[in-house]
């Protein structure tokens, strides 16, 4: 057993690509060896900016010899058959074995030397390597076929045991020589085998193990900070990035002018991290201190004094830019910054950011006024806010931007509207222009700096949340209103112009918006019919305000929708005008049917999809969500999930599983009889009402053609149906499941005891009807046809 070492040396590989490159190297190496019939055990894979290394331990010297046996024709077969077999095997007749009148060919394939396999594998790996971006270089690049690599490939070390694995790729031949640290040991060093590789490099100022470099940076940075009485702000992303930029990492602590600390700490941390790849440090008080840790790639002759001085200067230039922005931005009130939002296009078909702000402000207020978002810690649970949306709800003559000094006294609706009006203002500030990732956060700072109430500043700061999975979900009422309104508007707006995500394409991050909506509703247990705020958002979109902000300008709305590709008949325009004149919108209005309803339907479907993805991680079965969702009309996500969870608990019981089996059997029979499973059929009516229908329980019991099982199921349905529907109506979903469970024994007994397709047509009709009524009862709780299993 022998070890193999491969080193692919290259000019500096981007730090962000190194982890992927290690995985790619492992994958390709295993594939190459396995196709040659070699097992690979544990692989060690390392990376530095200048090399990828692989050590495969305990490879055999050769692949195993294989003996292949092929059965040929009978010896009595015509000569053509034998000739054909000889051609196929490449053997002579005297090399075949005659076993009981049948020819066999035995072909021995000798093992191949592993070193030969490796000599072919290495070029194949290099040529097949997938980099996120690759390039050509040098003389060879005169041809389009020249080798591509992430940056110029400069050397290959390939040693099996202590023997060179000879190979050549793109003019680069394998050898024993590599190079040490670019500055400390620029000359060639000779590697003997996998055993001395890492240590020889270490002696030449290269720590080839990326994890070791990461540990040096992680611990060294923490120690450099601690030695100065400071606490490093841990940042694993920076640890990995700096390890990908260095072969000999040396963390160094520097200080910057304390005066810069007046700039918000997030700004300092961001510019230090993103632009300079520095760690920041906290003081003993837990607040950001005037220090940074940079990671040098050398043991500098002066201990790093010059390096620290240089880096300090660069950071100071960055921070003075940031401080300049911080000072400039605060000279203008957010309200005045917001006026410039009409210069920023939100989307060419959807107008400017100012237009969006207007819509979000109205919607945020509406969410509060409808009682969907309330002041109480846990919101009003009585009903699902469903009042008609009044597009004029947010008039400019309501209390708004200029809050009185006692701004804290603003009502929640006023807070939400004000925050929404100012939430996007920081987009035109210098700071956010420079650091787009600080949007929201800076708005929050600027709001507080100009004395706006905390609730408003917090809502501005956090209204983009949650940004991704794991991000905080807003719970402060004003923030919830703005965050929810912003995302609902985004979804409504893009769906209205038919910009829906497709496949991996989601340029407007609508999936994230949908997930945000779901998370906010769940975290705050908001009881609402999602269709309503969507209708509200769409109505505002249709009736986008013109110059007079409180007037529902329908012409503008129509023009916008027409520009967006929505076709209007003259009649529709008239009806839209009516709606506009009414200044109101309810479910009965035509605009609702024609524009709003179709968009709502597709948005609700989209939300359901996102809900499934989100709930998968919580272990909720997607088919059960479908089963509840397929009933239609459910757009209260809190209620929907409660029902799904009860259903999931039920399906885990024996009753649940058996009921599902009974349901499937019933559905099959009904299907064969040409009946729709999901709705009560004519047959069901025959047996639906125990008093009014042709069949009553008494008749069933008295009919000699029918048996006990016929009556028992009838009776069970009579009690289960009202119990289940009452439980559903009162959102007692576990009780609804229990009601269904009571059907399990009767349905089992029914299938055991009777034949549905009785020769007597009346009996058959009765039994089909009964089954239809059974599936109907089940559908009152969930559409079991969507359930898998």
């Amino acid at each position: 057993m022998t070890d193999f070492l491969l080193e692919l040396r290259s000019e500096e590989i981007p730090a962000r690509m190194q982890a992927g490159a290690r995985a790619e190297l492992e994958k390709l190496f295993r594939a190459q060896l396995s196709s040659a019939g070699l097992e690979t055990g544990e692989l060690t894979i390392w990376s530095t900016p200048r090399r990828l290394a692989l050590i495969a331990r305990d490879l055999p010297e050769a692949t195993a010899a294989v003996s292949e046996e092929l059965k040929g024709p009978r010896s009595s077969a015509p000569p053509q058959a034998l000739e054909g077999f000889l051609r196929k095997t490449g053997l002579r007749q005297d090399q075949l074995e005659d076993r009981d009148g049948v020819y066999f060919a035995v072909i021995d394939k000798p093992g191949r030397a592993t070193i030969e396999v490796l000599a072919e594998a290495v070029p194949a790996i290099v040529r097949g390597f997938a980099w996120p971006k690759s390039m050509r270089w040098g003389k060879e690049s005169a041809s389009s076929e020249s080798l591509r690599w992430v940056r110029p490939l400069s050397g290959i070390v390939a040693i099996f045991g202590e023997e060179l694995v000879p190979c050549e790729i793109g003019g680069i031949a394998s050898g024993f020589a590599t190079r040490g640290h670019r500055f400390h040991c620029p000359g060639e060093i000779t590697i003997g085998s996998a055993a001395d590789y890492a240590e020889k490099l270490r002696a030449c100022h290269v720590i080839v193990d990326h994890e070791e470099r990461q540990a040096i940076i992680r611990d060294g940075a923490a120690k450099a900070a601690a030695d100065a009485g400071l606490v490093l702000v841990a940042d694993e992303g920076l640890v990995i990035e700096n390890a990908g930029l260095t072969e000999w990492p040396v963390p160094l602590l520097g200080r910057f002018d304390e005066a810069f600390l007046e700039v918000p700490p997030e700004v300092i941390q961001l510019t230090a991290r993103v632009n300079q790849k520095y760690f920041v440090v906290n003081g003993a008080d837990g607040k950001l201190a005037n220090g940074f840790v940079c990671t040098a790639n050398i043991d500098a002759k002066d201990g790093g004094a010059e390096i620290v001085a240089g880096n300090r200067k660069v950071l100071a230039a960055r921070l003075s830019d940031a401080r300049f922005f911080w000072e400039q931005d605060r000279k203008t009130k957010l309200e005045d910054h917001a006026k410039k939002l009409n210069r920023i296009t939100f989307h060419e078909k959807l107008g400017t950011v100012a237009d969006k702000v207007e819509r979000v402000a109205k919607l945020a207020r509406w969410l509060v006024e409808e009682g969907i978002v309330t002041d109480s810690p846990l919101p009003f649970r009585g009903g699902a806010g469903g009042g008609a949306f009044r597009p004029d709800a947010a008039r400019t003559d309501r209390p708004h931007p200029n809050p009185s000094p006692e701004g804290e006294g603003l009502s929640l609706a006023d807070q939400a509207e004000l925050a929404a009006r100012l939430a996007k203002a920081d987009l035109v500030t210098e700071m956010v222009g420079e650091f787009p990732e600080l949007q929201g956060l800076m708005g929050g700072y600027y709001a507080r700096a100009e004395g706006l109430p905390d609730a408003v500043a917090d809502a501005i700061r956090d209204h983009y949340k949650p940004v991704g999975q794991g991000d905080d979900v807003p719970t402060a009422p004003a923030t919830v209103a703005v965050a929810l309104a912003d995302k609902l508007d985004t979804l409504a707006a893009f769906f209205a112009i038919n910009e829906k995500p497709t496949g991996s394409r989601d340029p407007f991050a609508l999936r994230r918006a949908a997930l945000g909506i779901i998370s906010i509703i769940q975290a705050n247990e908001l009881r609402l019919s999602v269709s309503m705020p969507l209708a509200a958002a769409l109505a505002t979109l249709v009736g986008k305000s013109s110059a007079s902000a409180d007037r529902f300008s329908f012409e503008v709305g129509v023009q916008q929708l027409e520009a967006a590709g929505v076709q209007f008949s003259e009649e529709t325009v008239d009806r839209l005008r009516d709606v506009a004149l009414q200044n109101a919108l309810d479910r009965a209005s035509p605009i609702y049917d024609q524009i709003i309803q179709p968009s709502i339907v597709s948005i609700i479907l989209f939300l359901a999809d996102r809900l499934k993805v989100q709930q998968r991680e919580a272990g909720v079965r997607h088919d059960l969500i479908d089963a509840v969702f397929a009933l239609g009309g459910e757009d209260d996500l809190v209620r929907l999930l409660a029902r799904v969870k009860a259903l999931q608990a039920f399906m885990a019981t024996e009753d649940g599983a058996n009921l599902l089996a009974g349901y499937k059997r019933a559905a099959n029979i009904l299907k064969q009889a040409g009946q729709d499973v999901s709705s009560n059929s004519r047959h069901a009516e025959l047996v639906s009402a125990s008093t009014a229908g042709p069949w009553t329980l008494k008749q069933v019991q008295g009919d000699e053609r029918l048996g006990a099982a016929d009556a028992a199921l009838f009776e069970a349905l009579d009690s289960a149906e009202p119990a289940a529907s009452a439980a559903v109506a009162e959102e007692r979903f576990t009780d609804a499941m229990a009601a269904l469970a009571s059907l399990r024994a009767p349905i089992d007994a029914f299938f055991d005891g009777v034949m549905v397709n009785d020769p007597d047509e009346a009996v058959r009709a009765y039994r089909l009807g009964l089954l239809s009524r059974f599936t109907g009862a089940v559908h009152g709780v969930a559409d079991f046809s969507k359930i898998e299993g």
Partner: protein
Amino acid sequence: MTEGAEKKVLSFQDMILTLHAYWSARGCAILQPYDMRVGAGTFHPATTLRSLGPEPWNVAYVQPSRRPTDGRYGENPNRLQHYYQYQVILKPSPADLQEQYLGSLAAIGIDPLLHDIRFVEDDWESPTLGAWGLGWEVWCDGMEVTQFTYFQQMGGFDCKPVAGELTYGLERLAMYIQNVDNVYDLKFSDAVGDVSAVSYGDVFLENERQFSKWNFEVADTDTLFAGFKAAEDECKRAIEAGVPLAAYDQAIEASHLFNLLQARGVISVQERANYMARVRDLAKGSCKAWIDSQSERWTQNYPGWTL
């Protein structure tokens, strides 16, 4: 440089002369700046056009570069609307390009065992030239001092072979070497005898003030728009007439006028993309015409070479 040896810190002009000597000794033709207003050294036809085709090409030159929107009326210690780039083109890119480059840093006084030199991923793309390449920004103690690029495409055409491009930011590098915080304090030349030293500010501060004002406030936008249109038309005429070098001059002119229009704030976001596409078409058209005018010779002298 050797450890401990007191070496005189290079003035701005001596730094340039040192780089000239360094690259001259490595076979580069030392060219002079192109005599037109450009945004970067890459616009010099010695880079744009000569990076196309199979012929070896090794040159170095200083290129005064103008970025009207970066003007700060001489009040910002780091930003200028007119500055210098030192440009080196080596085609095909030599195997030891990084080592040659590091040698040039040593030549101007940067000791890599005292200062932290790093190659940090930075892929270069010029939308107006239809060009891109992969490479790094080179950091010295955290400051970007050079853009290092392997050209992959120019004018929309594959570079065959690939040229290596080094673009040094001369003012930044000089501020670093001379250890000054304000660009105007840079020592441009040394005092000799009773001739006193000249600072960067002596030479350029007034230029920055006046040109910032002209770029942002004075330049007549109608004239600029008309100039853009005229350059565009002339570029197309020159392409038609088979004189791509002249055509390319007009593409450069259009590009700079577009930059000035931007500084005047008269080009909206939507129009911006449109103008950039027009400049790109001119640059690509000029590159294409250049290739057409040369390809017969190229294929003759370099059998097997294809576009």
